[in-house]
């Protein structure tokens, strides 16, 4: 066997090893953030969304039609926000060259999972604002949760989305039309989509670059 063939095989083996290690690292990172439990909770919320539709929680023309789905979306969002908390603290920061990428991947994956699971919760039932509004609301509130995590730390990151959800409930009752309260706007409203997307992007960038505030030795 020629040396170049040996070198190729060695390079391929190294690459495969790296990929295997990368997958392993990603899995361990996800477990450390309790992502499996987070996914289970989101799935449960999706089931509640579906059951709520069958119980006519979202029928009629009152504010309740939008209020309850927003709250269930907020439930998924607070799970994402709180999962940013690192159980390792400074040790991870000192060793975390790959950490920003892991954080980015985790947040994006969880947000996508939240949207997907909640969309699955709509199977067989009708949500008045549909999947587009669900995706928009989830992304926007996730951005708020991530921003809150960088300010207050992962464990308290729920405060921002809960406050926003409470304000949204008020706004829906009072028929506000500000695009900053994107849930109160029609599903394909450009201003609302832009606002929600902007907040999401800011949150993702902050959590990727800075990570959650390290409230020491949590």
């Amino acid at each position, binding site marked *: 066997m020629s040396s170049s063939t040996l070198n190729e095989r060695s390079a391929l083996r190294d690459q495969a090893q790296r990929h295997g290690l990368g997958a392993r690292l990603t899995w361990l990172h996800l477990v450390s953030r309790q992502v499996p439990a987070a996914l289970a909770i989101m799935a449960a919320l999706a089931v509640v969304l579906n059951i709520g539709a069958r119980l006519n929680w979202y029928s009629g023309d009152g504010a309740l039609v939008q209020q309850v789905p927003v709250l269930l979306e907020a439930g998924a969002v607070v799970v994402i926000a709180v999962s940013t908390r690192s159980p390792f603290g400074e040790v991870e920061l000192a060793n975390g060259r790959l950490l920003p990428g892991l954080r980015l991947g985790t947040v994006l994956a969880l947000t996508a999972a939240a949207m997907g699971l909640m969309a699955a919760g709509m199977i067989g039932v009708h949500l008045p604002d549909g999947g587009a509004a669900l995706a928009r609301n989830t992304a926007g509130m996730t951005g708020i949760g991530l921003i809150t995590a960088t300010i207050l730390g992962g464990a308290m990151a729920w405060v921002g989305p809960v406050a926003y959800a409470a304000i949204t409930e008020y706004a829906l009752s009072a028929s506000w039309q500000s695009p900053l309260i994107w849930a109160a706007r029609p599903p394909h409203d450009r201003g609302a989509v832009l606002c929600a997307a902007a907040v999401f992007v800011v949150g993702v960038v902050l959590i990727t670059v800075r990570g959650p505030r390290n*409230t*020491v*030795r*949590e």
Partner: protein
Amino acid sequence: MNVEINGLVRRFGRTEAVRGVDLTVDSGVFGLLGPNGAGKTSLFRMMATVIPPTSGTLRLLGRDPGNHHDRREIRRRLGYLPQNLGYYPRFTVAEFVEYFALLKEMPPARVPAAVASAVEKVGLGDKARARLHTLSGGMLRRVGIAQAIVNNPELVLLDEPTAGLDPEQRVDFRKLMREIGETSTVVLSTHLVEDIGASCSRVAMMYNGTIAFNGTPDELVSLGEGRAGDAPLERGYSAVLAGVRA
């Protein structure tokens, strides 16, 4: 005797962490040595009344910790520092020690003086108002010692108390233990044989859930004669381990 243990067993599922330990401890400083997984922490947790034994008898300060009233009385006279100290980051040093003083049902009028004294004894007098999350690991360990001794306990259980302490602090700690040992029973679990040599009047070694040695530090040293090792107690420790593994 302040600690009387007969045939003590503790199982966790299928694992027998403590297998028929017999031990008596009177006042003074008593050391507990052993490799990782020997059962020291499980034995400690039983003595601290955190977990009950699976079988065997355990009497602490002449009382049966299996009885609710006796257990409460024991806990009033007990000081415990676990291997992994938990704490509330926002509390100050004094508040954290005060909190445990109150949980130990110390007479409230005596609490402030007791807290100040305990904090001074561990050398954190100038850090009394510092929040716990601002302290180093060694300082946190000393806070843990302070909360263990704040109620002038008759039985003090310290699991790895000198972890994170610098040499000078370890010397101070050993002196403190000898002082406390004059009127109380101190049981020290440690990997550092120097702590045993400097503080303890008696020492036991655990291996695989049983007591492999029970005697004085000098007796342990004598077992190690002719063996290789950096220090006499280490040589004795190795000799005992070799004996039980053989």
